[in-house]
């Protein structure tokens, strides 16, 4: 590893970092615009063309606002929580491949922050880490609304994480039997995308979505719950808990929680697209189009798939009312987890039969 390799690593990380900040600016604006359209309003329109710079304006405003540390708070923990919210958010997306590896000279550069063989486990671990920020923020504020919000968030996040993990196992299991030449399963996200390339019968793309539709539904519901979005936004239910776990945060510290939430929405959509919608796979017309366009197209496909899912996030938020807390827990523990376990075993038996024949033959 010489200094050029090191430079490429740093460059990849910086690209991921810049991409996430950029999509956050767009997503906050897009959500407000989309929800406004659903509700027959206009939405932000003053700052920049179509109000697109609204997020920047809001960020600047928060930058110059006083950031209060409440008298009753645990100061150390209170200051630590924004860091714990933002860092895992960036680290989740670091694992997701957002384009086909490009070749410059004799170097193959994967368009992915980090390509390791335990990528999926790191994603799962980092989404668990995000719970700490919420719990610490809620507890250290020394106020009852944040405490209730933090406690709710913990129970919710860990409940749905179990269902999410089980849905992921089903996908890993399925893709383990998909590679003819490279045997065995993989937890590398780049490899999982690679195995979804090509088509069935010439027209149907080999996405995991079709054979793993049940896992997709469970995973997507769990993803919405993990990011604390409506209809699972009991963590920050305004009518009950003011602002939830970040009630006592203001100014730039509040902006950090806001940033983390929108990065998580994008990351979860990108992860869903990677696991179920074939990631960056799509027609690239190599040899017909110019080289740079063929290299760019996978990124475009990835962004289109991700933004369809992000739009569904907004759509669900604009459509569905909030669940009651006991309904939320019942959905997680009594429906999604048994459902995911059952689907996993069904997948295993069907795949086993197709690959190894009957067990007694």
């Amino acid at each position, binding site marked *: 590893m010489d200094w050029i390799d090191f430079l490429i690593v740093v460059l990849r990380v910086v690209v991921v*970092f810049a991409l996430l900040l950029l999509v956050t600016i767009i997503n906050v604006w897009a959500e407000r615009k989309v929800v406004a359209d659903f509700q027959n309003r206009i939405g932000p329109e003053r700052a920049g063309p179509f109000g697109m710079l609204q997020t920047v304006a809001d960020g600047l405003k928060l930058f110059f606002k006083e950031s*209060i540390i409440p008298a009753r708070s645990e100061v150390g923990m209170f200051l630590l929580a924004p860091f714990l919210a*933002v860092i895992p958010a960036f680290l989740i997306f670091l694992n997701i491949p957002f384009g086909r590896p490009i070749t410059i000279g004799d170097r193959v550069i994967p368009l992915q922050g*980090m390509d390791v*063989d335990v990528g999926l486990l790191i994603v799962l671990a980092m989404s668990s880490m995000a719970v700490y920020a919420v719990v610490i923020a809620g507890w250290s504020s020394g106020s009852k609304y944040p405490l209730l919000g933090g406690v709710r968030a913990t129970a919710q996040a*860990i409940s749905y994480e179990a269902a999410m993990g089980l849905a992921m*196992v089903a996908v890993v299991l399925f893709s383990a039997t998909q590679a003819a030449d490279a045997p065995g*399963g993989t937890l590398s996200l780049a490899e999982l995308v690679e195995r979804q390339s090509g088509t069935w019968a010439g027209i149907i793309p080999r996405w995991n979505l079709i054979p793993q539709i049940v896992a997709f539904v469970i995973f997507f519901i769990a993803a919405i719950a993990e990011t604390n979005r409506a209809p699972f936004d009991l963590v920050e239910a305004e009518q009950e808990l003011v602002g939830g776990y970040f009630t006592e945060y203001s100014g730039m510290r509040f902006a950090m929680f806001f940033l983390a939430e929108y990065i998580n929405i994008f990351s979860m959509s990108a992860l869903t697209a990677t696991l179920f919608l074939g990631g960056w796979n799509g027609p690239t017309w190599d040899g017909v189009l110019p080289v740079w366009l063929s290299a760019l197209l996978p990124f475009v496909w990835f962004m289109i798939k991700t933004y369809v899912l992000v739009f569904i996030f907004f759509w669900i938020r604009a459509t569905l009312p909030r669940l009651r807390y006991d309904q939320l827990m*019942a959905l997680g523990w009594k429906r999604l987890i048994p459902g995911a376990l059952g689907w996993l075993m069904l997948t295993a038996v069907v795949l086993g039969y197709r690959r190894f024949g009957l067990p007694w033959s």
Partner: protein
Amino acid sequence: MALVDYLPFVVMLVLAAGFVAVSLVASRFARPSNPTPEKLAPYECGITSEVEPTQRFPVKFYLVAMLFVIFDVEIVFLFAWASIFNELAWYGIAAAGIFTLFVLETLVYVWKRGALDWNVKTRSRYAREHFRIEEAA
């Protein structure tokens, strides 16, 4: 896979932490800071807070956390099985199936015990005790 493959993780960790630190510190020099006792009081919709915020977590959240540990451990085992699915063939499916059955049995048990019912009053055990107290009185 070499340890150097995890370098982006460290770079991103430093970058993200640095980003938060720099924006918070920069904001510190740009923003006003004149705290007053009212401003520093816990939020209570504009009135003086009467109830001290409790600093304890309700037990039922603890119960959910305990259950989660069981399932998370199971998921980690299942990931290991899924990545060598082809080598283990039917032996692996049978082993994972038996393991899953045990975990499902745990779930059915706590379900029937009422541990998954969020509202304590509807838990059958509590309801029965509550009923008995009412009868005695």
